[in-house]
Structures are given as structure tokens and as C-alpha cells.
């Protein structure tokens, strides 16, 4: 079945089995291996990408359901050479260790900040509560997101960041 979608601003068309999961389309067909998978039961969030304007668990969406839609993955977060403040925050605050959960965490963080530029630590924790990190104990992920919020508050006009895709 034909599926056409826009990933990180680039349009792709592929002929796929209807059962193909979006995460596998991204990783195996499009070679965008930044998004990971970590479970069979939609619990871990390693696979989170944006579908249109919201993050979803791409292991729980069929590729054909994304037909005609926009997808944003970690590969599309940076604006060319300049990292998204969320990416910078993760590096600044040691918000990652193995880096496996990181793409999904950052995509959720970007969404959170777009909707709530000044989240409380609790709101950050709530936003990422469907995503597992086995390395950081979450503390520095929270700090990373708050770092990005502060950075953007200082920079202003950050609302446009990463909202493409």
C-alpha cells in the first residue's frame, strides 16, 4: 500500500505492508535510526515522534495511518547546525547517559515547551511519565527541560523552535 508522508520537512513515498509500524518505516525504510523502540506494549516511549502536532508512540501507529501527515523525529530537531535548546539542555545538564531514551524524551520536551513555556518540575515529570529512562533517574532530564525553558525565555520568540517537520 502506498504511503506518502513528510518527515522532518522531506516528503517520502513508500509502498508498504499495511501492518508495518511507523517506527519500522522510519528506522528500516527511511534509515532514520534516531528513533528507537524498547518494548512490545507501548509502555516505554523510546519510539516517540511527532505525528502532525503531537508526540505519539510510533510503535503503536501503523505507517499507513501517517499517510498525508507530518512526522518530526530527533533528526529534525536541530535547525541545521544549531541545536534546539532542548538538545542543548540535555547536553548541558547531563540529561542523558546511554542516550537510548533521549530522542523520545527530547521530542516530548519540545512539545511541552511549545504548549507551556514555563513548566514546573512536576509538569515536566508528568509530561515524560509515559517514557522510561533506565539511566538518569529522570532528575537531569527534568533539569535539562527547565534549562531549555529558561534559555528560551531569555532568547524570546522561541515558540517557533522545532515546530516544523
Amino acid at each position, binding site marked *: 500500500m502506498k504511503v506518502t508522508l513528510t518527515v522532518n520537512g522531506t516528503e517520502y513515498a513508500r509502498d508498504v*505492508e499495511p*501492518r*508495518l509500524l511507523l517506527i*519500522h518505516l522510519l*528506522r*528500516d525504510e527511511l*534509515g*532514520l*535510526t*534516531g*528513533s*528507537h523502540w*524498547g*518494548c*512490545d*506494549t507501548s*509502555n*516505554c516511549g*523510546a519510539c516517540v515522534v511527532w505525528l502532525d502536532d503531537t508526540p505519539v508512540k510510533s510503535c503503536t501507529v501503523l505507517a499507513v495511518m501517517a499517510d498525508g501527515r507530518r512526522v518530526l*523525529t*530527533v*533528526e529534525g*530537531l*536541530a535547525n541545521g547546525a544549531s*541545536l534546539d535548546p532542548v*538538545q*542543548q539542555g*540535555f*547536553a*548541558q545538564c*547531563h540529561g*542523558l*547517559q*546511554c*542516550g*537510548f*531514551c*533521549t*530522542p523520545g524524551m*527530547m521530542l516530548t520536551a519540545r512539545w511541552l515547551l511549545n504548549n507551556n513555556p514555563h513548566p514546573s*518540575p512536576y509538569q*515536566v*515529570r*508528568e509530561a*515524560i*511519565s*509515559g*517514557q*522510561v*529512562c*533506565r*539511566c*538518569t*533517574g*529522570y*532528575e*537531569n*532530564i*527534568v533539569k535539562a527541560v527547565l534549562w531549555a525553558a529558561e534559555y528560551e525565555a531569555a532568547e524570546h520568540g522561541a515558540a517557533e523552535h522545532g515546530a516544523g517537520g
Partner: protein
Amino acid sequence: MTGPGVAGQETGAYGAIPRKEDARFVRGQGTFVDDISLPGMLHGAILRSPLAHARIISVDASAALAHPKVEAVLTGADLAGRGLAWMPTLSADVQAVLATDKVRFQGQEVAFVVAQDRYAARDALELIAVEYEPLPPVIDARTALAEDAPLVRDDLAGRADNRVFDWNAGDKTATDAVFATAEVTVGCDMVYPRSHPAPLETCGIVAASDAVTGRLTVWSTSQAPHAHRTLYSVITGLPEHKIRIVSPDLGGGFGSKVPVYPGYLCAIVASMVTGRPVKWVEDRSENLMSTAFARDYHMHGEIAATADGRILGVRARVLADHGAFNATAQPTKYPAGFFHIFTGSYDLQAAFCEVTGVYTNKAPGGVAYSCSFRVTEAVYLVERLVDLLARELEMDPAQLRMRNLLRPEQFPYTCPTGWQYDSGDYPRALALAMDLAGYQELRREQAERRGRGEYMGIGISFFTEGVGAGPRAHMDILGLGMADGADLRVHPTGKVVLAVSVQTQGQGHETTFAQLVAHELGLTPDDVEVVHGDTDRTPFGLGTYGSRSTPVSGAAAVLAARKVRDRARLVAAAMLELSPDDLDWLDGKWRVRGDPDRGAGIAEIAMAAHSSLELPDGVEGHLDASAVYNPPNLTFPFGAYICVTDVDPGTGEVTVRRFIAVDDCGVRINPMIVEGQVHRGLADGIGMALMQAIAFDENGNCLGGSFMDYLLPTALECPSPELGATVTPSPHHPVGAKGIGESATVGSPPAVVNSVVDALAPFGVRHADMPLTPANVWRAIQGRPVRPDLAVS
């Protein structure tokens, strides 16, 4: 207290610098095993046993082979034909690669399908017909040695029961004597339930066998690539120099990526059979149901003391559930790992423990999950016992600990079971933790809340770990001594490449090791590139687990750097036309004594060492050096943790309100990374204490085979930790560092459990087994606790 190489030394490149590895990870440019794709690559999938114990009558793969996308199917019989149906485990037992005679746990590997894509491989599993004759399973470890228990390992000649080993440590007679005369003794049964490290990335491999060159290249999730290379060579008979193991970026490991798993061997054989690269990546249920579990210790502990609270001795009897194969990964001499460090952080007269390992129809494993080779179980036991004693004596548990902690002047201290603790200042760490927590104020608040019918708990744990295995004379795995090498190449411009045998799974070796070397050579961490995880490019060593990277491999890196520095001195002397004795290493340069503005740094010296400069006799050119570090002893990190919980007795819900953690891991090379390690371990402790456990029903069905059933803590269960540090350098480590990778995982579970039990004290609760789910807390209050290892009924 100071150690060699520490006293008065400037911090140099040490410090909380951001990690070098993050640049690729935040861009999604890490390379994990499943990201690797080779031309012509095939995909493997494993058919697993649905039954815990059954005889295999037949395996018919013909329908699967007829699937248009299937290239091959391997069965136990196929592997037997190659002598590969069984493989050695890291504990010198054997484990079935693909079952031939019986299946011995639910999820055991039965057949391996190789197909053109993952979806087809998964489909083909349903086309394999296996006929089983069900056998009664051994599920409850406590009945595994009963006379009528079914025999799990009838494959082992002469084996009449399910006993794996009997082992003990300490002085039984002396300990019994202490207990016989002690004024107070307290005992308790406790279970450290089976759990799973569950790194976010499951295990996987891409195996590429080249029939022409005879080379086998393996990309796999391996914490110990060199050990794996040796093992593959031993198992398959391939010459070791024809095998290359690459461990790319690992999405966590925590011990679960130390062993060699059947799936790896299947992929290797499949690549040989098909002549094409074969990828196999576990799904999550395979990961949870078949690869290295952790813990599963059924313990009875006792503590003896005087009436005024002087602890005299501890003793323990342990039943260790090892599952169907004894595949624990630990130094060979220690079948119960380092459990006999269960004397903890206290000044005792005597201790004795005995451990019996049993086979059951469950997945193999046991030593995994940041446990420091079973120090986890030991610390849990003794820290629960101390709290039980405090309750018995009606003493404050902090005061009781303070009273009995080893004093700084007692180090180096040899504990009753023989460990020699290298250094410590325990009272200082506990005092700091109590200070950070506002301990007295918390106790006041607790009393006040209790008056209002609110239940808050304060739990303490004080732990000592022994890490950095280990001295080669005592410690080996399958005969491979636990020493690690480091190679340092100094390029003419003074840029350095360090190649190490250990393998990061997120610990930040590329940064910490660069800092270690930069510090020794007066460079910046950016001048040092760290290479790891590729056996063709790195020296031999046993890998990363048991918090051994910095203690062992870090030491090797430092020694190699010091060799470079020593050689650089000779070269610098030649450059400056002075005697080496006229030079001092100061502020990162060799400087002329009395004229410190004159001198040379590593970059200039390196260029000279590669140049036409005439070197003195006996001085080789270049500056490269290598070292192998054989640690003289373990290092002994320690810490004091305080956990504050709130318990809702009407629902059994537990909220972790605060977690205060003071760690002493000796010298901190990158404090940011150290703290990150602690954060992780505290989350582990909350997970294990409150939710992570794998139980089995009476038929041996695994009840924790997915992330819906095996719960991991989320950001909402983990509080924002409050950390503190003391620094007591290790006297024998070249820079005074101890390991930190597992401290918090080891130390935090008893703090949480002590806290919850403390909250429930008004209900008369003395002990409650993990996991303290709402249901288990409520049942504990009712005085009807649930066995955490069996199905809830």
C-alpha cells in the same frame, strides 16, 4: 586520608565538564546494534518454549522452511550436529543454545528462524510445530530440594537433586558462640525478589561470517567484548584472531549484557550457514523472560547485640534460586558473589553465612543489575537487620548505626569474613546525610503526623561495597583473570588516543577516561580520544560491570599515561640538554627545577619524540605506552542514604517524598557523571523496593514478561534527589578513585523498605518484602503478607 597521586595535586582536567559523547546522542546519531544494517542482511527470530518444563518429542520446521521469505531454520538437532547445542556458562555450567532434550523454563530457545525481514521471521515462528510432553515444574525455590522434586538438570551426569552448590563464609563456631551468649538476637526471613535490569535497549547482534577470509565479525550488545571473543572462540573452535567483536553504543546494560546468550550463537551459526550477515534483536518479552535476571535470594538473617545496642555478630542462611542453568556472571571462586560482605559497615566480632544454590524451572542468571556481585542482597539483609534490632531495642536507627559504624582509625579494616576494606570515614558520611535530611526535625514531624493519623516513614541505609574486581590471584571468570589493559598512543602533535578494554553503556567513559589521561599529561580532555568496544582496536580486558571500569581500567589508563609522562621526561631532558633529574612535573609540563618558566609540555615533547632529535641510549622514540592493571585489592565505596516516604494506609500507596544520598566513591573525576550514576541507582532502588519483581505461577508462567507487568519507575515516582559527598580516596588506586556505578542501586532499596516499615510501625509491622506495591503494603498492615515470588492468590 590521602592516597598516592592525590596529595596536593591540582584538579587539572578533572571536574564536571559536559560529556563528549552527547554531541552524537542528542542528534540521534548514536549507533546501537539495531541501527546497523549490512548489505544482504537477514533477520533472525527465536521460537521459545511456552512451557516451563517439558520433554521435546519433535520439532517440525518444514512449513516454516516453505515460507517464501525464510532462508533457514536452526533447531537443537541442527546445532547438535555441529556440537553447538550446548554452551558453557560464565559459571562453568552448561546451557542449552537450542533445546534438544527438554525445555527447562518458559521462554527457553527452541528454534531459530532466519528470514529476509523481521516481519517474515516473526510470521514463520508460527509455522514451526513443536510437540511437548509436559513435565511437572520446580517453581518454588523452597521446595527445590524436596525429595520428590522433579529433577531439572537430568542432563548433568550423576546429578540426583536440584542443588547447584553449597557455600559458606565466616567462622561458624565463633558466630554461634556470639549468638549463644548475646543479650539480644533478632531474626527475620526476607526475600530479595527476582528482578531484571531491563536496559531500555534489549540484547541484539549482527553476525557476519566471511567464508573466504574465515573471519567472523560480530556487532553485539556486549559489556565485555574481549571475554565474548574468547568465549566464541572456545565454543565454536574459530581461532580467536579471526574473531572481531564490536560493541557499539549500548542502550544501558547494568549487568545484563555480560553473558553470552543463545540468540547470539544462533545468529553466528546462521551467518555461517547462510553466508550472509544475520541480525537478531530481542523483543522486550524475550528480554525479560530469558536473559539475565537478578537477585532471587531467599534469606534468613539474624543479628546479635548487647542490650545497650552494640552489634556483635550476624549470620545468614540463603537459598539462591539460579534458574535452570547456573549462568551467573561473577568471579569463579565466589558462587554467591561477594555476598559475604554482609557484615556491612559495622564493627562486629563474628559472622557466618551459608548459601545454597538451587536449580528451578526459571530463566538463568542471578548476577546482573548493578548488584556489585551480590553486595546488593548483602546490604539489604544487614540494613534490614539493623533496623529490626533498633526496633527491638527501641533505639533510633540512626543512633544505633552511629554507635556501631567502623571508625576511621580502623582502616584498613579486615571484616570477619575476610574482606579488607581499604578506606573510609563512615560516621562523617552518616552525619552529613542526617544533616542534609534535617533528621531530628523529620522525627519530630513524624511524631506529630502520627498524632494526626498520618503515616510517614524515615528509612536509613548505610552501605559498603567492594568493587573493581579484581586481584587476579583471586578473581577470574572462566579462567580469565580480571586485569585490564590500556593502550595510549601519542600522536606527534600531542593529541592522544586511549584504547581501553571496558565498554560504556552510558557511564560516560569517553569523557571520564579522557579526563583521567588529560590530567596526567597536562592536556585537555578534548585532546584525548577514547576508543573502546572493538576487540580489533583495544587491548584485552574483562569489560564493564561490577563498577570496575574506573577502579581497574581507569587505573590502567593512568598507569599508561604515567609511563608516557616518564618517557616524556627523558625526551624533554634531551630537548633541553639537561638531566632528567633536573626536571619536575609541574602544572602539566616538565619544567626545569629552579627555572619553571623553562620546560616542555606533552605536545612539544611528542613532536620531538617523533623527530630527528637524538635520544639518549635506551630511550625508544615516540611516546606510546601501554599498561595492564591488576588491582591489589577491591575498592570499597560507601554511603549513607535516607529515604522519606508517606504511606496511605487506606490504599497502601507509598510516595517517596525525599531521598538524601551521601556517597563516598573516593576521588571524583567528573562529579556530574558521578551524580548521574547516583541518580540512576536511586531510581533503581525505588523501582525494586516498590514495583519491580518477577513472579511465577504454579505452572512456571512468568508473570513479569512485559513492561505492562514488570513495572519500571517513571519520573513521577522518583523524587528529586538531594545528594551529598565525602571524599575518602582509595589508598591503592592510582588516583584514589573508587567505583560509583552501582552504589546507589546497592544502597537504596533498604532505605526505601526501612522507610515504609518505619511508617507502618504503629500497625505493628516489623518487615515487609519487596515490592511494596499498594497491595503488599495493605496486606502487610493486615498481618497477611504475600509471597512476592509466587502468583498472587
